[in-house]
């Protein structure tokens, strides 16, 4: 048995944040029906050119596969009357409806919360937009690529002598999904207690800002403006990322106590510079940090990053290589041990890798199943889930409901 078996999710979401949330629910057992437009499929199917095996195709996008496991897929042409009837019956079937369009989009399709409530009074609807459904900026279009700057993240990544660089991903898309699932779960709890459904208005910006709480409090309470500090820490030294041998190979090293510093020195073979008194204490090291970082790199640069990490960890010193995609997927023994990546089979892409989650539930484990092809489950959903007769399905099909 899986934890969310019996939970029914109608998923209009697309791109990253919404699909990641519904992937979690599907991977842990919910029945998720992903609805795509006939003229407006999820853009990750075509837009990023991550084709499995390098062969393009509507059902061959590795990105779509990665973020849409464990879902059924149907297509609806939401301007078509008989398609609207299918949508109505899906709403009636569902516990939770999820979407992440710019505010106003669901209303144009007659699928706003008030309309859904008329179909199913205790429905739970979750809208996850950039800045929420209300307020002067509700209709500002955007993607996580930019929103992470607006939410305050970009400001905190960079070197002190250069401007902020931010992340080369859309970080808010990896914050909002967790709160979408949290909102879904507490709404189910609320429905158990009260018999009532509800509407969740999640601003991805608002969900993200608590991730910077300590820096925000430092400003609010102390008037201190924290800025990006490279890889350094105000508390510890050394605390950096050091070049190792090979192309773009690095090892992160963090020393949390003077005892760890001595262990670090002994791993380096007590080099003359390392046992110099100007590096004895945290305060000494902080005062000479620029020089110290350069000296440490003279030790790491000739060695393999993995070797540096393992020798330091063997003496209890915090160290870790900067893993790239190759390291994570093919070398990292910890991710392998945890079965973080696992293989699924797909009718067009064949066997390919997918990603699990960050947690193991002891009694109701994760079960990652493959992503759907475009419109693959139109018939299955209508006849097996909505219990349409074959005649009814064929009529709906002929009327152009599925495009």
């Amino acid at each position, binding site marked *: 048995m899986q*934890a969310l078996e019996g939970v029914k999710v109608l998923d209009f979401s697309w791109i990253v944040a919404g699909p990641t949330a519904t992937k979690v629910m599907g991977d842990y057992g919910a029945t998720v029906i992903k609805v795509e437009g006939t003229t407006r499929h999820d853009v990750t199917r075509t*837009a990023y*050119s*991550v084709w499995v095996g390098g062969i393009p195709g509507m059902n061959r996008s590795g990105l779509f596969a990665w973020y849409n496991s464990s879902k059924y897929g149907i297509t609806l042409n939401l301007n078509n009357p008989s398609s609207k009837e299918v949508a109505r019956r899906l709403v009636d079937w569902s516990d939770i409806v999820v979407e992440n369009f710019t505010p106003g989009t669901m209303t144009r399709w007659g699928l706003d919360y008030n309309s859904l409530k008329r179909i199913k009074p205790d429905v739970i609807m979750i809208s996850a937009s950039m800045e*929420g459904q209300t307020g002067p900026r509700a209709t500002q*279009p955007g993607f996580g690529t930019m929103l992470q*700057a607006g939410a*305050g993240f970009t*400001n*905190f*990544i960079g*070197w002190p002598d250069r*401007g*902020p660089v931010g992340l*080369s*991903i859309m970080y808010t898309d990896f914050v909002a999904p*967790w*709160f*979408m*699932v*949290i*909102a879904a779960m507490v709404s*189910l709890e*609320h429905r158990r207690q009260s018999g009532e459904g509800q509407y*969740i208005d999640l601003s991805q910006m*608002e969900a993200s*800002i*608590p*991730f*910077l709480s300590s820096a*925000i*409090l430092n*400003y609010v*309470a*102390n008037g201190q403006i*924290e*800025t990006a500090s*490279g*890889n350094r820490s105000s508390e510890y030294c050394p605390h950096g*990322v050091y*070049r190792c041998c090979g192309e773009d190979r*690095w090892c992160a090293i*963090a020393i949390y106590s003077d005892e760890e510093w001595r262990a670090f020195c002994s791993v380096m073979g007590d080099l003359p510079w390392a046992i110099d008194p100007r590096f004895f204490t945290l305060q000494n090291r902080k005062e000479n940090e620029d020089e110290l970082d350069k000296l440490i790199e003279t030790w790491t640069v000739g060695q393999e990053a993995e070797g540096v990490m393992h020798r330091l960890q063997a003496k209890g010193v*915090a*160290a*870790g290589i900067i*893993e*790239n*995609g190759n390291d*994570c*997927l093919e070398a990292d023994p*910890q991710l392998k*041990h945890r079965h973080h*990546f696992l293989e699924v089979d797909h009718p067009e892409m064949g066997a*390919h890798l997918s990603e699990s989650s*960050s*947690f*193991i*539930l002891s009694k*109701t484990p994760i079960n990652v199943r493959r992503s759907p092809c475009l419109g693959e489950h139109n018939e299955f959903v209508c006849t097996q889930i909505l219990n349409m007769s074959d005649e009814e399905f064929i009529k709906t099909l002929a009327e152009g409901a599925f495009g």
Partner: protein
Amino acid sequence: MEENVKLTQRGVLQPYRVLDLTDNKGYFCSKILAELGADVIKIEPPGVNLSIEKGPYYHGKYGLERSLLWMAFNTSKRCISLNLGLTQGQEIFRQLVKTSHFVIESLPPGHMDDKGLGYNVLSELNPQIIMTSITPFGQSGPYRDYNDGDLVVSALSGFSYLSGDQDRAPLRFSVEQSSVQAGSQAAMAILIAHHYRQLSGEGQYIDVSMHECMALCTWVQKPEWAYLKNMYRRQGVRQFRSHASARVIWPCRDGYVAWRIWTGGESHFTEAFINYMNSEGMGQELAGVKFGISYDEVTQELIENWERPIGEFMLRHTKSELVDAALKWGFTLYPVNTPEDLLDNNQLKARDYWVEVEYPDFGVSVSYPGAPFKSTAPMWQISHNAPLIGEHNKEIYTELGLSLENIAELMRNNVI
């Protein structure tokens, strides 16, 4: 402070009690549950706790409860002190487990078992208990006992590889992210397990790995390697899509903004920006450019040529001019906001985002980030400020049925 004053107005998790043994790895997790209404009892060992030995401090003055990390992430919880190193302390903890619904801990793997407080023991006492461990690498595997920290976990997950300039080392976030990622993902896991328990009556054990929490936050890095053996690389202020990288962070007159040239299906956002430039008599160099071409067709040279006049245009404008224009013209631009900017943000103000939390001991109220989502039925609130260590000893130990003499004796024996 008068206790219980605000504790009566609680949210959707009001029927449930959480025993929270975490350090900063789990603060955010139990804060989320507390602000959804759960009765979270933060359990701290008497004496020094290394996890709150971290600055910065309120008004720069050292003090356990003055740590901003403590203040930021422990609101809405009650706090007792309890020494789990002593058998008497362990016994009190086992009593508390009988009337609780969740246990969250972040000790190194194996330590709870050593204290006789592992899941096997706790689930005997209370089969419905959901116990969660949040650790850097999880409960098993070759890295299980590795020395950790945000820098190391961010490095090993692939997360750090994605940020920074190519001519220097990859970068971590200057504000720790692995603990808040783990906190929110663990809260999600707990509520999934809770849903199952409410239907089945069964509790269970949850093993959260911070390493995996961060590995999940890397967008195309893993799929690109898994399917194409392509290395997704950091590119400073630029970002790759297909063969070319576009500038994402732009200097403007008074700071930085995030914007990029979109092509393909998103080219209308670029065209909206060009319309804005044209309305100010600029951007003629870009007249007739077909931004609708696919990402695969965009070369590095092409995109950098397009970017040149745009860079000049950005430098002539302030953040707020560009932000207002984005809404008016319909293009995707956000400013690089600082905490100061966020506190002053009109949209957040219009949605009553910030919450004032009173600190009577300091004689101040402090603005906190508010609800992660709004709901038609009220579910979320900050019920009170971060507690002092042991602030609720008397209240909670009395609830357990201990007399004042018992409590005094436990204090003498250093149990609480």
